[in-house]
């Protein structure tokens, strides 16, 4: 009870803190230095007062005692804040741009991002207080985000700089998004096909356990850019010695080295979890299987693997989230992906172009994480 309240109080305090930061930044061009506007300067006093008032409501609610209704109130207020902060951002950006010279940009500033974070801390606290009611929990978690999505797809936010970076790059964005999914999905799938048998082998054969883990651990310590770079030379030598390989797309740059590097990074969590999943099984369960007349293979397939499956999937989940982040660097060796926007933005010192690449990477990681958690739950046998 005490722990729960302190989360809500922390969230509300961060929310109140965000009110003192700059909310929008106005720049004379996309690379120029910006002028930061406070909340009232950005949205006008009426809108600013409403947001300040709503945060004070949140703070009061998180300090107050009470059960489900208090939590529901908190969750709803936080969602309203989330919606309004973006609704007015779109409105304000439009009216600011009307008076500024051509090519001016309006960017979202620290205040609005901290506000976003605070809203989700409060929502997290509110969810904990809502108990088992999955309908309410879902409403509280997703309503605000869905309404912001509505603003985004409805074109309400098109005067904000990140969206202006997106417009005119729609085709490339779609291409690089798919490429990013292909890079991490393909490499994690390959790593699963290689890693699970290696994990099983390590359990069954004590002699290979050490070398397998030695390799998997060592590779994790190589910085990602270095590993991508290290693969270029041997692969290009290989593709020149055996030209037939080049016909199949094996080259020193592009997708091949990126895939190999990502597979290597993804191996450790998968091997380790397969190993732990099988090792932690109660020997009694295996004895019971053997006692029922199963042979070793049947015990492995019908008893050991199903019981270890949730942990194996947990390893795949860790590997996926890690690979989504690492695939960003692949843009530097010609493999594309969302990192393409990040590095281009860095090259032009255009912060909003970096954000355009970074936000989908974060969303992708959160979404895959949630999906894999569902898969883990589905794979967990009842009674565990």
């Amino acid at each position: 009870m005490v722990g729960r309240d302190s989360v809500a109080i922390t969230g509300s305090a961060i929310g109140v803190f965000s009110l003192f930061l700059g909310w929008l930044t106005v720049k004379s061009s996309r690379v120029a230095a910006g002028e930061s506007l406070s909340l009232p300067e950005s949205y006008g006093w009426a809108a600013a007062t409403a947001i300040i008032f709503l945060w004070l409501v949140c703070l009061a609610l998180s300090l107050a005692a009470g059960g489900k209704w208090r939590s529901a109130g908190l969750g709803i207020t936080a969602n309203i804040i989330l919606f309004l902060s973006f609704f007015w951002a779109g409105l304000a950006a439009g009216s600011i741009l009307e008076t500024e010279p051509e090519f001016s940009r309006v960017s979202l500033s620290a205040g609005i991002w901290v506000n976003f974070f605070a809203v989700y801390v409060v929502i997290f606290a509110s969810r904990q207080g809502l108990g088992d009611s999955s309908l309410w929990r879902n409403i509280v978690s997703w309503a605000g985000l869905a309404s912001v999505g509505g603003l985004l797809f409805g074109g309400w936010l098109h005067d904000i700089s990140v969206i202006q970076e997106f417009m005119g790059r729609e085709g490339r964005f779609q291409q690089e998004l798919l490429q990013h999914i292909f890079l991490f999905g393909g490499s994690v799938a390959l790593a699963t096909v290689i890693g699970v048998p290696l994990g099983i082998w390590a359990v069954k054969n004590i002699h290979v356990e050490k070398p397998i883990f030695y390799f998997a651990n060592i590779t994790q310590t190589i910085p990602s850019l270095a590993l991508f770079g290290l693969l270029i030379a041997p692969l290009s030598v290989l593709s020149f010695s055996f030209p037939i390989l080049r016909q199949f797309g094996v080259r020193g740059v592009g997708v091949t080295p990126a895939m190999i590097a990502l597979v290597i990074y993804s191996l450790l969590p998968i091997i380790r979890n397969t190993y732990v999943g099988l090792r932690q099984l109660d020997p009694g369960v295996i004895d019971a299987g053997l006692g029922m007349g199963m042979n070793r293979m049947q015990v492995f397939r019908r008893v050991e693997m199903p019981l270890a499956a949730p942990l194996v999937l947990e390893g795949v989940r860790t590997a996926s989230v890690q690979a989504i982040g690492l695939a960003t660097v692949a843009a530097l060796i010609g493999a594309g992906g969302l990192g393409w926007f990040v590095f281009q933005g860095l090259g032009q010192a255009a912060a909003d172009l970096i954000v355009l690449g970074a936000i989908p990477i974060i969303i992708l990681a959160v979404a895959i994480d949630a999906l894999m958690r569902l898969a883990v739950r589905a794979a967990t046998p009842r009674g565990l």
Partner: protein
Amino acid sequence: MRKSITFAIAAIVALTVLFTGCAGGGEPVTIGSKIDTEGALLSQMIILMLTDNDIEVVDKSQFGPTPIVREAIISGEIDLYPEYTGNGAFFFDEADSDVWKNARQGYERVKQLDMEANNIVWLTPAPANNTWAIAIPRTLSEQEGIQTLDDFASYVNGGGYVKLIGSEEFVNSAAALPAFQEAYGFTLSGDQLLTVSGGNTALTEKAAAEGTGGVNAAMAYGTDGALSALGLVVLDDPRGAQPVYEPAPIVRAEVLEQYPEIETILEPVFLSLDKETLQALNARIAVEGQDAGNVAREYLTSNGFLE
């Protein structure tokens, strides 16, 4: 049973070879570029021009930094990309040679070396020198009457305040700042320099424009688009201290044999791109945030290269 498996494998191998190896005739041309503004602009121009002349292209523009794009064309991952003549000095380890300071000689030298070593053909370059340069705020330039590096040297030697931001490479490599200092007779001490890692001129130019940390001079490239938007001017290099970096389309000889017309399609376009034109076009992408493809198309259309 075994026979039919052998047959199946043979069939698969035969089909694969047929489809991948001997595609022959109208193979598309893969266009790459470096991951920067000018790379985006030039590659889009090339793509538009080739497409307009019924050559099928694959767009792999903004492929990666220089070493990666270089590796890509050598290994055949890409067929054509814009490269700078002066970079021949580094590709072929001839940085000490003087030929790179002359536009014509540098071009001829790199053309010959790249053909011999990698079977890559250098087509006609644009008469625009995108070399290392020093840029200062326009206000400083007007106050102190600094237009050339000679003016800059006498300003520095006269005790004027200067703090120059540049990459490690710019500050230390013999071809860059040391070459300027030797040619114009000035020396910047440690506290007159701010060294950053990475050769990102967007960052150094921004610092000089905003006076971050007292910086009032920046490493720049001659055709950078952001210069005028940031209120910076590039100092002229009348003594030719720097290698000449003219952008030229370079293409694998095999591909050029298949499409010899590429040479004559691209030549007039590149000849039309002088320094001021490139600066202005780069600015529309880097500063105004316009799409490189649209900027390229507009330029090509208004100059009569495209219908």
